């Protein structure tokens, strides 16, 4: 028959078989029509359908034709000291009988297990291990009583007979609640722990082996039997279980079986007990799929599984959190990452029952770094004793990042190799630390030197192991990247790529792609974006060629491609966002717990910010926070803290101050917990919080935080940029509080640091401009004028003269003019700002408010009292109307004071008293006790009281003011006049 003919036959069959059998004859006739051959063919085949035959429908199986044993020993048969009663089961190892002692010595029923001879390779070993097992004496373990060899050569074991049901069934029958299930579980742990104490590993813990008696006691069966019997050397296939559901990864890949394997099985058991399902459902599908899930997929969250299951035994809400973390820790792929002992697991479960915090959730030193667009600085200067921890953490960082990418692929193999490589590197670093003698220099973590040493050693030692070397160099490149040492990172990554291509060739593939992505990452951090993009496109081609375009590794490439477009045109940025979304999509589907997903989310947020899409950025930040929190706090405190930090940071710039404060505080707490206060990111977060509190008017708290952050930031080479930012903010704060000396010191430091750095000119000039203000009040007028003019000219080059920053600088110039005794010039400047910043109507912008206050002061200087009073009153009105009232306390203090002085000078002391008192009280809440502005306000109030002949009340105020004046190291003549009783009829006081 030809193929086309057959196709017709098949099509016909498809149609007919879909119909009920009664219609077949008619249908075949209809379809075949005149074609007799076709009809014959169809009919003959139809006749052969239906029914089942045992050959074609059975599966082929293999049996040995050799020794055939009877289906079971007859009742009454003697085996050793026992007499068989009946067959009770058929296990993988052999038959199990219920038996009793034949000599009637004890009324004891046992389970007699006959073991197939072939399974026991070494009789003596069997004996020895049997004796070890016999010593396992624990109420929770079915006791091994006796053993021997039958007449027919089969070994047997007599085990305490246990009547009970599997633990899962028991709990279902009893409708056990959470506490009862946990207590049962703890009893199981106790039994297993006891055996571990005797160095016996169970290896086959599953509900079928954990029975519960009628009395409610647990009994473990088949303890260590697996270990005893399968003494053959080739572990891999011997131990290969046919149902992998309860198997630990190392059991599936033939690695060493340890007590950690039992921990894993207990984890599975706990999972099943608490939510009624196994973590990995194979749906009866391929063995291979099931195995791969176990080896590669992250453990599903217990509470989530319970939540979405049809009939959970325990409400999912009571599983959330602690129990999630416990099961996750017990079910880690790497044996070394699980609970190190069963007792530890048991204790954590106990803590849940007693409502104590569980260890599984404690913050750990290892962390994963999230990324801001362009900001990843990791280097920390550290005192000697913290050194090892930091280095381990550094390695851990790069480690986590790489393992995260790798996790979807060949987890076991890579992790094994990765661990070896990690140990190697750690060793090198430890050695290097010994070479560093004590002293100040050594206290600064000189990672550059360390990495140099590491690289040299690696080149030498790993010359003959190209694969390991490639791994190590890739790690080093990443480390350098993380540390901001971008030229080294680039050099290493380039070298690595070149060597790989020389060794393996340039055919597109996954291994090459990985290295291309590493190099591209280094290039992006150096702004060599075009080259990076090219590499990334090629890497993606390579992944596609290897069929891995839908993998976490490819997602990393998409992420970098997205990052590479951050300073492009709008179209380029939009394309970048597309790539980021692709990365997110892949990770969400394929590897939802991969830390890389956090990177993608924070990058998407940054892009939204660039696009001025504040709402979008907030959504991404919130998703980032949710993601990190869901990973659990145990190893993720840093990432969660960082997520709070960036969310709070974003909220602060969008003026949601209360939310921002809350989130920043959380962030600071978690970050400090995770990596200590000295870490740059923890310091950054504190600085950010301090800045926010400053704007909210909590100046004392703000100052403390900023000083703290500054100290941490200033002590590292890499933290310098952050330190200048913090110094500027702190300088502002101190100036505003009246601690001018400290403000001067800080701002001068900034100028010193930034003086010769061409990249920092704008920042330099901002600090210079602020310093000019401070100096103006301190009386260094010449220097103030020089600094101000220079910085204003620079601003004119960098920013539009209509911008807010420029307006603020102008206002500072106006105050300088006041300090120089030139109120007319000052007034002109202020008027200009008001005109350009918008009308001083009911709603004033920040700048126009400042200018209005300055103008009021200038008016007072020139004796124009009424306009001054009106200005001050207008500002107060605007403040009262403003939705941001609470942030305008400083402005209110100034306005009240100016209003009071105007009233006082127009002769109305009584009315002046209220605003002046208000000014003083506001100042007291805002300023340092020795603040000149506070002193000034007090003096004004004192004059007001004296004008009302209340000299006695005035005295206290004057004394305070005088004391403050004395304690101020530098005070300009202009201001000093204020604080003398005779003077002070003048207005001065605009600060900015």
């Amino acid at each position: 028959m030809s193929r086309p003919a057959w196709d017709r036959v098949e099509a016909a069959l498809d149609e007919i078989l879909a119909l009920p059998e009664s219609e077949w004859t008619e249908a075949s006739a209809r379809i075949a029509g005149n074609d007799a051959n076709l009809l014959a063919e169809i009919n003959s085949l139809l006749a052969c359908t239906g029914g089942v035959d045992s050959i074609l429908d059975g599966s082929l199986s293999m049996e040995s034709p050799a020794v055939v044993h009877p289906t079971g020993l007859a009742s009454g048969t003697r085996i050793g000291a026992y007499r068989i009663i009946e067959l009770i089961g058929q296990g993988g190892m052999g038959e199990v009988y219920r038996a009793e002692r034949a000599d009637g010595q004890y009324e004891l029923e046992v389970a007699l297990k006959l073991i197939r001879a072939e399974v026991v390779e070494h009789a003596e070993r069997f004996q020895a291990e049997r004796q070890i097992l016999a010593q396992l004496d624990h109420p929770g373990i079915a006791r091994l009583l006796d053993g021997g060899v039958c007449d027919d050569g089969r070994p047997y074991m007599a085990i305490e007979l246990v009547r009970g049901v599997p633990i899962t069934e028991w709990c279902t029958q009893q409708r056990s609640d959470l506490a009862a299930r946990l207590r049962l579980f703890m009893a199981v742990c106790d039994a297993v722990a006891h055996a571990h104490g005797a160095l016996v590993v169970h290896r086959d813990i599953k509900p079928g082996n954990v029975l519960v008696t009628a009395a409610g006691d647990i009994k473990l069966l088949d303890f260590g039997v697996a270990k005893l019997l399968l003494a053959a050397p080739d572990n891999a296939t011997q131990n290969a279980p046919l149902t992998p559901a309860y198997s630990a990864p190392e059991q599936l890949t033939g690695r060493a079986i340890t007590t950690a394997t039992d921990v894993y099985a207990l984890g599975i058991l706990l999972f099943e007990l608490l939510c009624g399902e196994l973590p990995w459902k194979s749906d009866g599908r391929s063995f291979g799929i099931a195995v791969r899930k176990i080896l590669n997929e992250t453990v599903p969250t217990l509470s989530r599984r319970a939540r979405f299951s049809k009939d959970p035994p325990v409400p999912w809400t009571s599983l959330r959190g602690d129990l999630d973390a416990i099961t996750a820790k017990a079910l880690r792929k790497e044996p070394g990452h699980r609970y190190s002992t069963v007792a530890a697991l048991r204790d954590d479960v106990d803590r849940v029952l007693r409502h104590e915090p569980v260890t599984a959730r404690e913050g750990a030193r290892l962390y994963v770094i999230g990324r801001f667009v362009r900001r990843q600085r990791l280097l920390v200067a550290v005192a000697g004793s913290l050194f090892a921890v930091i280095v381990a953490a550094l390695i851990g960082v790069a480690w986590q990042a790489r393992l995260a990418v790798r996790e979807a692929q060949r987890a076991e193999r890579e992790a094994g190799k990765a661990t070896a490589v990690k140990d190697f590197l750690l060793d090198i670093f430890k050695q290097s630390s010994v070479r560093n003698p004590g002293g100040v220099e050594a206290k600064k973590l000189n990672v550059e030197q360390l990495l140099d040493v590491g690289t040299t050693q690696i080149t030498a030692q790993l010359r003959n192991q190209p694969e390991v070397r490639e791994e190590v160099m890739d790690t080093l490149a990443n480390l350098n990247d993380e540390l901001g040492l971008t030229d080294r990172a680039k050099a290493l990554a380039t070298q690595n790529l070149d060597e790989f291509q020389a060794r393996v060739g340039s055919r597109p593939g996954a291994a090459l792609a990985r290295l291309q992505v590493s190099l591209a990452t280094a290039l992006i951090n150096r702004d060599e974006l075009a080259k990076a993009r090219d590499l990334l496109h090629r890497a993606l081609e390579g992944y596609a060629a290897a069929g891995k375009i839908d993998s976490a590794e490819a997602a990393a490439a998409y992420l970098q491609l997205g990052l590479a477009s951050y300073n492009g045109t709008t179209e380029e940025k939009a394309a970048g966002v597309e790539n980021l979304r692709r990365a997110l999509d892949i990770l969400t589907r394929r590897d939802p717990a991969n830390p890389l997903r956090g990177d993608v989310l924070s990058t998407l947020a940054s892009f939204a910010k660039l696009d001025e899409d504040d709402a979008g950025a907030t959504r991404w930040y919130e998703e980032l926070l949710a993601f990190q929190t869901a990973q659990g706090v145990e190893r993720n405190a840093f990432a969660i803290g960082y997520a709070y930090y960036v969310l709070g940071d974003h909220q602060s710039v969008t003026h949601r101050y209360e939310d921002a404060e809350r989130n920043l505080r959380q962030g600071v707490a978690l970050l400090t917990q995770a990596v200590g206060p000295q870490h740059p990111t923890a310091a950054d977060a504190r600085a950010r919080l301090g800045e926010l509190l400053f704007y909210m008017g909590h100046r004392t708290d703000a100052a403390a935080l900023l000083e703290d952050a500054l100290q941490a930031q200033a002590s590292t080479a890499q933290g310098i940029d952050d330190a200048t930012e913090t110094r500027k903010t702190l300088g502002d704060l101190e100036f505003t509080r009246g601690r001018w000396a400290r403000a001067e010191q800080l701002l001068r430091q900034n100028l010193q640091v930034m003086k010769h750095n061409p990249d920092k000119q704008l920042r330099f000039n901002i600090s210079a401009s602020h310093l000019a203000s401070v100096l103006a009040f301190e009386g260094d007028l010449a220097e103030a004028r020089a600094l101000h003019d220079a910085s204003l000219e620079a601003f004119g080059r960098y920013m539009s003269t209509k911008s807010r920053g420029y307006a603020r600088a102008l206002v500072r110039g106006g105050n300088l003019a006041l300090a120089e005794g030139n109120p007319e010039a000052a007034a002109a400047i202020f008027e200009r700002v008001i005109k350009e910043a918008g009308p001083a109507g009911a709603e004033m912008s920040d700048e126009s408010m400042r200018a209005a206050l300055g103008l009021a002061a200038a008016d007072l200087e020139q004796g124009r009292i009424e306009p001054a009073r009106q200005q001050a009153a207008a500002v107060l009105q605007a403040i009262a109307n403003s939705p941001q009232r609470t942030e305008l306390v400083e402005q209110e203090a100034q306005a009240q004071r100016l209003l009071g002085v105007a009233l006082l000078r127009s002769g109305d002391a009584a009315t002046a008293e209220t605003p002046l008192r208000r000014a003083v009280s506001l100042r007291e809440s805002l300023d340092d006790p020795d603040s000149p502005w506070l002193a000034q306000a007090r003096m004004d109030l004192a004059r007001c009281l004296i004008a009302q002949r209340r000299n006695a009340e005035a005295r206290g105020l004057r004394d305070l003011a005088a004391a403050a004046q004395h304690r101020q190291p530098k005070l300009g003549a202009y201001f000093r006049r204020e604080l003398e009783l005779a003077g002070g009829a003048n207005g001065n006081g605009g600060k900015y």
Partner: protein
Amino acid sequence: MAGIDGNGIVIEGNLGAPAETERMAAALIPLMYQDLRRIARRERARVRAGATLQTTALVHEAYLKLEHLVGFNDDEHFLRACALAMRHILVNHARDRMARKRGGGAAHVSIDEAPEISGAPDEVVIKINDSLLELAQLSPRLAQVVECRFFAGYDDAETAVALGLTDRTVRRDWVKARAWLRRELGAGADLTLEEA
């Protein structure tokens, strides 16, 4: 017929599998043969009732071994290769035993190591294989379904994965293929097993 010497195995009767699958199957065969012998030894004293070694166990063992070494990207590839390999092994096995029974031919597997393929007499296995080659001329897909379901012992779901089909298609294909085989093997052919 190809020899099973670990090198240069030629798999007879490609049912339409791509060359890569054939290559992989060729690599699998010696591995699986080793396992076959080991399993046979291990299973020697097994009681007939109850535990018999399914062909899927062989597949599982091979899978673990290879996963360890190579890692797989997709089950489809592996499962197909395994099915092909299984067919090869089982058919050769049957041929060897038949040759030995007739007293001729080199025995590649010593007699006490060779498990009998129960579930089908050797002649039937060989006949099914021969028919399959014919079926492959008409519809490679139907033949592959038989290879998966019958020789490799996959269920509908696994067969679907191996061949990139839906479960429903597999079921329908199996009905058609089985009908064809039954007809080919002769209307009188007794395809039911005698009680062991």
